[in-house]
């Protein structure tokens, strides 16, 4: 069951064995009015960088009800430029204030020369970008004084210069920087379809002990002539193929906390809660009634 009002939670162990949902402003009032039976809430860090106002007050109230995960989308860890110190310090203040169970960011970049794409752009998987990511993740962990999780992103292209596979890259990053991994199962599926690899091989390429959270989301399909490209839209239900891959991930990585993401074409709260309940049913089928 969700946590009682006023309870403070800190550290990964505080996330119960129950799927969580992504927190969106449109659902703030509905969650507070009737707190749904979900394990935790995950907020986009940048949505709460404000100095004051209603959004930050909502997060205070919601934090008193649920364990929280802070999920960043704007740090641009893989950029060749130095990290944005102001962005980092805002994140640090948010982490200090809300004591989230998880802090996560992406295996991606999004800015160069002060110009931001505000997107999670894929990195070439080379020794140069690996060393840069190791340095950056270490820098962030040192500043925050805690381990962070890095999430695999969806992609619509790969680079000719890549010399490592994504599982090899992520594994080396986790080992060298001691970060955890946030495995987005939908992104694995999307990339497997877009780039023609076997998603099951991808899971086998990730060490069992490093995956600390799983994301699930919906995607859409774009046609380019006779070629299909899957787009990670977070705009619909998790598809059956991703649910199946999720079960394989649970089997390999254990009963790790799972989150339902839904960002565009946002449905009513009960739809998200039902999707989280479906994840719980899959978990319970594999790992028993741990909740």
């Amino acid at each position, binding site marked *: 069951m969700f946590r009682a009002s006023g309870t403070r939670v800190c550290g990964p162990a505080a996330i119960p064995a129950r799927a969580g949902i992504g927190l969106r402003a449109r659902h703030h009032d509905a969650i507070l009015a009737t707190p749904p039976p979900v394990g935790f809430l995950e907020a986009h860090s940048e949505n709460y960088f404000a100095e004051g106002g209603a959004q930050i007050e909502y997060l205070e109230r919601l934090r008193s009800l649920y364990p929280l995960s802070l999920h960043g989308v704007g740090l641009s860890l893989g950029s060749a430029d130095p990290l944005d110190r102001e*962005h980092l310090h805002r994140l640090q203040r948010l982490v200090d204030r809300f004591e989230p169970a998880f802090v996560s960011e992406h295996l991606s970049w999004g800015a160069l020369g002060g*110009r*931001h794409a505000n997107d999670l752009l894929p990195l070439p998987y080379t020794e140069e970008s690996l060393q840069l990511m190791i340095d950056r993740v270490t820098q962030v962990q040192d500043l925050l004084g805690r381990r962070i999780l890095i999430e695999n992103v969806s992609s619509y*292209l790969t680079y000719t210069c890549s010399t490592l596979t994504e599982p090899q890259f992520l594994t080396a990053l986790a080992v060298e920087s001691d970060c955890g991994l946030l495995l987005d199962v939908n992104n694995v599926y999307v990339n497997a379809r877009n780039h023609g690899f076997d998603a099951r091989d991808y899971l086998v390429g990730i060490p069992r002990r490093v995956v600390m959270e799983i994301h699930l989301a919906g995607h859409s399909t774009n046609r380019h002539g006779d070629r299909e*490209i899957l787009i990670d839209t977070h705009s619909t239900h998790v598809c059956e193929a991703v649910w199946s891959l999720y079960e394989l991930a649970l089997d390999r990585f254990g009963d790790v906390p799972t989150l339902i993401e839904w960002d565009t074409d946002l449905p009513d709260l009960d739809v998200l809660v039902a999707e989280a309940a479906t994840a719980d049913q899959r978990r319970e089928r594999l790992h028993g009634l741990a909740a």
Partner: protein
Amino acid sequence: MASLREIERAFLNAVLFGETDEITRHIVGAGLDPRRRAAIYHHNALATFTGMIAATFPVLERLAGADWLRQVATEYMQRYPSRSGNLHHVGAHLGDYLERRLWGTQYEYFADVARLEWNYQEVLVAMERATLDLERLAAVAAERHDRIVFELAPAARLVASRFPLLAIWRANRSESCADMQEGTVDLAAGPSRVLLIRRPDHVELRELPQSDFEFLEACGRGQPLGHIAETLDSPESLPAILARAVSAGVLVDFHLEN
């Protein structure tokens, strides 16, 4: 082999400006033209940016239409690409951009509408401050009143326009078309001086008299009370102006100028 910086520079040009020539040689085609792969990111970036502009400027969108605003946002993104990993900052220059773009047209007032809506967004997320300590203010000796410098609430903004800005905003802000008062605002109705201030559950917008607006603007510039009094058309009105500013909660602190 190209460096990471070289690849990122080429890719960012494709994402922001649709210039795919340079990045394509670094992309694996695998059954799809590398240009089309890069273009997916350009389209995503445009959709994200224009969506953020539409969400930030709903009154402007209602006035100008979604298609027009999307086109303008696309041009604006080339001129003012995002400078932060936090997308919420991207609308800061839209008012200035529109002023130049629409200069001399019948739509010049769109620039002021954009400025009003941007200030509205800033007020929503500004720092909360305690209200003015009136006992401390009352304890200032009369001979030192001229040296008082007031501080405005972080969650308060002032926007002036030669158009009836507040009336335009009120007539177009509603989500419900039934509440709209289309055609009822006379653009020649005269200037507008608007105070925006965050209340516990909403942002209040109110029209200010010229004297009150100029007083608050001067406070915002850090001018001491004595100097402000000298610039007022009727200095004897200062106590009433000050009382209204305190009552509205616009002033949160003060110090004495040395």
